[in-house]
């Protein structure tokens, strides 16, 4: 690990940390609807899975999973990596995500992914992620994203009505 590697988060190490992060994932209704699962943690790296389900197909002729599912999965896992990199984990919001689709996912197979928060600042975290079936060497898609860290209470203020 280099000096500028992201600090380890309060999620700690080992089984308990994984269980806590899994709970966090299940807390998201859309994550539950897709069946997104976190499988492994290591520092600011996180691994996950989204199961193959007929209702997530984007191309009925080939049975390939919709691009939107990959987008959501990579966004979710990348956000998780950002949270794991934080000294005092709070919620994060995606600023932007750029996704390159190298090929369609293989029909009938679960999609796996790995996300790594490679830089975290006071306000912003930067994350790279890759989706694949067997190995990151044969990717389905790559993602690069930036997240705003909820370090101020202002987060989500646009959800409240304008003050009169």
């Amino acid at each position, binding site marked *: 690990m280099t000096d500028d590697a992201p600090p380890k988060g309060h999620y700690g190490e080992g089984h308990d940390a994984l269980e806590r992060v899994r709970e966090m994932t299940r807390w998201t209704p859309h994550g*539950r609807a897709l069946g997104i699962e976190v499988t492994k943690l290591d520092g600011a790296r996180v691994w996950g899975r989204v199961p193959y389900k007929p209702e997530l197909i984007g191309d009925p002729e080939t049975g390939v999973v919709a691009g939107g599912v990959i987008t959501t999965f990579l966004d979710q896992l990348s956000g998780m990596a950002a949270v794991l990199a934080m000294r005092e984990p709070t919620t994060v919001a995606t600023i932007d995500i750029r996704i390159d689709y190298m090929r369609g996912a293989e029909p009938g197979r679960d999609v796996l992914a790995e996300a790594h928060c490679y830089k975290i600042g006071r306000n912003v975290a930067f994350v790279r992620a890759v989706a694949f079936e067997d190995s990151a060497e044969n990717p389905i898609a790559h993602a690069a994203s930036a997240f705003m860290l909820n370090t101020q209470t202002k987060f989500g203020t646009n959800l409240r009505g304008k003050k009169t």
Partner: protein
Amino acid sequence: MSPQERLTTALARIPYANFLGVRAELKGDELTLILPYSEHLVGNPLLPALHGGVVGALMELTAITQLAIASKSDKFAKTIDIGVDFLRSGKPVDTYARARVVKIGRRIANVQAEAWQNERSQPIAAMHGHFLVAE
């Protein structure tokens, strides 16, 4: 079959579009996709806010459908890459999206899309992407 019916049929054939609950409306050659609010689309139940991935998926669906209309094709183009900018949290209300085909080349098309909720002038997200129109 009217263009509106053809479009509805094409979308109804996509299981993922049904999973999200997306509906389509066509005025002339301009398409609006409508994503009615549903609890299973929420990403953050505390705020609550729609999952960003869902908004991204809606704009991508809008882009490939608008592209099929613009290129008078029944086949959906393949996504090469997309960039999604999140501008505001998605509230637990209906979301709309429209796409503009910037350019269709021989193989690649460039498309921009925007998603909004109550006010068209207050977009919640923007997308730009490249799509493979022929192989």
